[in-house]
């Protein structure tokens, strides 16, 4: 075989590209575990559900439970608060969502207690809308955990949960 470069692609070019492609694929395959090891491990995922007994939470109170290392607010809303949350017009909300979509039983609001701005924990029964107020950068949430003012872009997240009894929920 001559060393002279030819104008047309030949079998040697094919081998060259195929070898390069195989090496790149192998390198990518090797990098994948190195990246993937940083994602939540099995022990972190195993803590993914929590049961909460609601019978000890009087009306008007908020309790905080830990789920996946984060606080979850369980708020026993008063009839007045439920009414307030339901009558808010969607056009007043930066992240429009009706209250009914955020609860399974109107008196129980369950939201992840992490401000959607930069992850601080908002303080309950505070702020203009009597829901939550985040002390870090001043976001306020209403009694449905919806963002009303401040830099946070979204409502407090509702975690996946289910009622496993009249007074018991399972989060996660």
């Amino acid at each position: 075989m001559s060393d002279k470069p030819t104008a047309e692609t030949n079998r040697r070019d094919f081998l060259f590209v195929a070898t390069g492609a195989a090496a790149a694929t192998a390198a990518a395959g090797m990098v994948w575990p190195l990246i993937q090891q940083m994602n939540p491990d099995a022990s972190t995922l195993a803590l993914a559900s929590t049961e909460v007994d609601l019978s000890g939470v009087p009306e008007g109170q908020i309790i905080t439970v830990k789920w996946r290392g984060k606080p979850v607010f369980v708020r026993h809303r008063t009839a007045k608060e439920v009414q307030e949350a339901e009558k808010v017009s969607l056009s007043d909300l930066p992240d429009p969502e009706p209250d009914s979509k955020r609860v399974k039983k109107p008196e129980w609001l369950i939201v992840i207690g992490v401000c959607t701005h930069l992850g601080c924990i908002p303080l309950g029964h505070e702020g203009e809308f009597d829901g939550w107020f985040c002390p870090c950068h001043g976001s306020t949430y209403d009694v449905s955990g919806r963002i009303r003012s401040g830099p946070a872009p979204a409502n407090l997240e509702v975690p996946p949960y289910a009622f496993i009894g009249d007074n018991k929920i399972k989060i996660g």
Partner: protein
Amino acid sequence: MSGPSKYTPKSAFARWLERRLPILSFVHDAFVAYPTPKNLNYLWTFGAILSFMLIAQIVTGVVLAMHYTPETGLAFDSVEHIMRDVNWGGILRYAHANGASMFFLAVYIHIFRGMYYGSYKEPREVLWILGVIIFVVMMATGFLGYTLPWGQMSFWAATVITNLFSAIPVVGNSITTWLLGGYSVDNPTLNRFFALHYLLPFILFAIVGLHVWALHVTGQNNPSGVEVKDIEKDTVPFTPYATFKDALGIGVFLLLYVWMTFFVPNYLGHPDNYIEANPLVTPPHIVPEWYFLPFYAILRAIPNKLLGVIALFAAVLIPAALPWLDTSKIRSARYRPLFRKFFWVFVAVSLGLGYLGAKPAEGVYLLFARVFAAYYFFHFLVLLPILGKREKPEPVPESIAASLAVPGASESEEGRVHA
């Protein structure tokens, strides 16, 4: 600046080594015979001061790592164990924590010096960009290290900073989870932050090597901004001139460093960091370390999460574009009457942003933060490009030697004046 080495090995061993690994001639050319502009002022000692601080941080950091435990249940106590039980542990930890502050103080002076004297201009663009990369890696290292004591500020700083990435559309939350190794800052986070905090200084060391290499290719800038024309007339050898000037600069800088370490070691710290991390309680005022405050003020000045995060990163990275944003052909602010004024306005705005970053983001503070943040970007994106074209510079001296001459004096008189 380069060329065949003038180094001649003096001993038999040096001759033997030189033929096999020319490290002695390399050191001689780079740190002994290397010509430095003879008009350098004390602002040029900050390169050496920064090298010293990097070594100081690595040395104190390595010994602290011998006593620290990166596990959420033990980390806070292991730091207290360093403070109380480990021989000299309290001083070593204070030296490391204050060392980070001194490192940033020195780097900010170094950066502003480069901005004043136009050190980023052709042919030093790569040198400058490497400097910006060093600054970014320093910030990452400082942030990771601040997490390790596992106090309240550690925990919430880590939470806020990692949540910056959640602003990225679509993949933001997955990236944050990936960075944390979970759904919140927890043991996996602390573990990896410790590993990375130990790694990054050595990467920093390598980039500093490139930075110094690039410096030795282009040669140093100098207060006149005029390139070296005549090695004999314009420069003096690095040793002893720069070596001893740097040594004095380091010595004076050390006075401040040592005074802070010994007498006010917690002045720049936050009392909340002596409370162990609690994932369920956010402190009422989260304040980052002082060296992040201007950028923190810019983040909070913008009432939109994604745009705030973009502005934060843009503010850190925009200096990398300086060689192209500053359109003036004149390097040194000495000969740029308008730029000189605007430079000090920029310094004042940067310090103002630092002050506002420590204040609550409300009312008049927020208003000023917005005005200052806007001015910060205005300086780079509007002012510098226009100023370079419109400004009428003052006459630039012909050479470094001429810049030192007394006006009206002849060549021979100049020799007498500087004798």
